[in-house]
């Protein structure tokens, strides 16, 4: 591949002032009609969510149709799905920072925001499926008048702490990332109310290098902690299923399998957002096809791990010789939920193989389609794990074919609406591309360019002109 064909990650000639004006302009300028439309539709769906949740709280979780045998249904499926989506945001912000990957700079803000809002949606479900959500505080270990303490051996209690930690971690990391950009917005805003708002949010950040030093340290702590957090949170949530004795749940592969699945769907969602936002805001030169290429490679990597886990599950079911394990698998392939299984295989095993092709990875339309199909596939995976493992368990008298109710669907679609609603609001509140990360990359690109010129005695065709001035 000749150097001339490699897309630069930073457009040549981009300088700091231009970058600031372009990105801040998306926040400080007027929103488009499309933004209002998306806000209205997602707002309506969020309203539907609020109404449904209120009704479920009033009438009880029986509205979800959860009963023996499938005692858990949609709430756990959607918790796992949403938490999974959040993980790629954390990985992009943190692990790509530690490994100094330059392609992180233009997508990490949207990935972090996506992670934040996905966690909010994920956190909704564990509260709802408690049965008596108004007693959720029983999970908190405080000395109470009933002498009651949480049952520490239960993964559901671990869930509470894991999701709480992840929520606080993600909000802390997002705020830390936003702090210097809020300061930039404060300095660039012309309306008084905006100056006040961003002034408050920026906490008086003055771009002092001494402060930047501490900032980078805090960033490093957050980044180092990211991988343990990601692995432990999804691992703990997968233990909800893995510690039970039900044949389709009781696999030791669940923690790494769920982490890989989480990262797969997470990267798919980041790709989805990247394609939509780069088109909506004309950011094709900042979020390039090369970024989509890298995101596609990450999607493929984690999809292959997930596919390996599928094979391992099937192999273990056969190798164990256990008739119940084998029965679950035959039921998955031929039983009432078989369409879910085979669609999942099609999305997660067959379609993802298209990602081997560089042309597919660099094509925004194809990546959009694959991102959507991957998310659907991962949702179907969680659905079929929960439903097929429990609906035909050890006791044939309890066998039943359970389907989700309209309240399940309304809350699920409502949570999708809430996610989009919060993201749409975020687009107007904060810059969707991290300006200070991009500035560092512009600076580094300029230095690489200068070094390249010194070594070769000439500039490269694609990167010449990347200056770091503010003319």
């Amino acid at each position, binding site marked *: 591949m000749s150097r001339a064909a490699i897309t630069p990650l930073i457009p040549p000639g981009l300088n700091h002032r231009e970058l600031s004006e372009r990105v801040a302009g998306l926040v400080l300028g007027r929103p488009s009609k499309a933004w209002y439309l998306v806000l209205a539709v997602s707002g309506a769906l969020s309203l539907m969510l609020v109404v449904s949740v209120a009704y479920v709280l009033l009438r009880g979780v029986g509205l979800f149709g959860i009963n023996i045998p499938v005692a858990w249904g949609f709430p756990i499926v959607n918790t796992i799905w949403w938490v999974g989506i959040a993980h790629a945001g954390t990985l992009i912000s943190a692990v790509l920072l530690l490994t100094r990957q330059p392609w992180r700079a233009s997508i990490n803000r949207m990935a972090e925001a996506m992670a934040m809002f996905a966690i909010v949606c994920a956190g909704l479900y564990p509260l709802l499926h408690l049965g008596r959500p108004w007693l959720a505080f029983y999970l908190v270990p405080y000395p109470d008048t009933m002498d009651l303490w949480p049952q*520490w051996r239960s993964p559901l209690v671990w869930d509470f702490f894991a999701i709480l930690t992840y929520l606080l*971690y993600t909000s802390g990391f997002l705020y830390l990332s936003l702090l210097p950009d809020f300061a930039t917005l404060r300095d660039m805003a012309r309306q008084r109310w905006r100056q006040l708002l961003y002034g408050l949010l920026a906490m008086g950040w003055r771009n*002092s290098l001494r402060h*930047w030093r501490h900032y980078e*340290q*805090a960033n490093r*702590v957050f980044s180092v902690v990211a991988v343990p957090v990601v692995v432990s949170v999804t691992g703990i949530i997968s233990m909800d299923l893995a510690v039970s004795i039900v044949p389709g749940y009781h696999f030791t592969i669940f923690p790494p399998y769920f982490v890989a699945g989480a990262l797969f769907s997470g990267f798919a969602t980041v790709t989805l957002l990247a394609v939509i936002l780069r088109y909506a805001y004309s950011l094709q030169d900042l979020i390039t096809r090369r970024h989509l290429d890298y995101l596609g490679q990450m999607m493929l990597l984690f999809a292959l791990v997930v596919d390996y886990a599928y094979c391992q599950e099937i192999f273990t079911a056969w190798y164990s010789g256990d008739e119940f394990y084998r029965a679950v698998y035959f039921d998955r392939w031929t039983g009432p939920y078989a369409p879910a299984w085979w669609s999942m295989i099609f999305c997660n095993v067959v379609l993802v193989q298209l990602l081997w092709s560089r042309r597919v990875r660099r094509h925004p339309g194809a990546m959009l389609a694959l991102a959507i199909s991957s998310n659907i596939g991962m949702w179907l995976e969680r659905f079929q794990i929960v439903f097929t493992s429990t609906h035909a368990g050890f006791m044939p008298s309890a066998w039943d074919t359970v389907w989700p109710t309209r309240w399940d669907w309304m809350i699920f679609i409502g949570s999708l609406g809430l996610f989009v609603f919060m993201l749409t609001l975020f687009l107007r509140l904060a810059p969707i591309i991290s300006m200070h990360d991009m500035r560092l990359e512009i600076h580094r690109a300029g230095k690489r360019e200068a070094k390249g010129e010194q070594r070769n005695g000439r500039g490269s065709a694609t990167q010449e002109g990347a200056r770091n001035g503010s003319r």
Partner: protein
Amino acid sequence: MARGDDPEEILLILAGFDTVAQAIAALEDQRRAGCALVDAHAPFPIPELVEALPGKPAPLPPLAFAAGVLVAAATLLLQLYSATWGYPYVVGGKPLASWPAFVPVAFEIGILAAIGLALVGMFRACDLPRLHHRLFESEAFTLSAKGGVLLVFEAPHAEVEQRLRDAGACHIEVVRP
């Protein structure tokens, strides 16, 4: 501008540069002349300038790690107490002091403590929130806000100012420290 009559008086000199390269070159000039950088203001952490800053930053990473370990240990003790003394009951035939089951919660709370200390520690070390600082009133600051770089030196201003102008500073301001 508070320029004293005495050219040898030590004052804070704020020098604004349009481009990062100019600022780095000016810093080199001053360093060779023995004048140390007090602070700089730039819209991103320029590695060359960060290295030139005197003093060491607060040791946030080791402190965060220590906080994490301590709080995780405390959480383990809390769980041990509540499971063996406060509210002991046998679940699934597991022993009361079932330490493998205690690990996930202790780990998560330890992580919370570590990141909490990192975040709060960063704000304290930077002395933020501080919504007003006299730097905001200076013209020089707007330069750094718009993408330029502001270097701050503490030195007798006469000798330093000329060197900075030679290095390409587009704006120089002198204030009392």
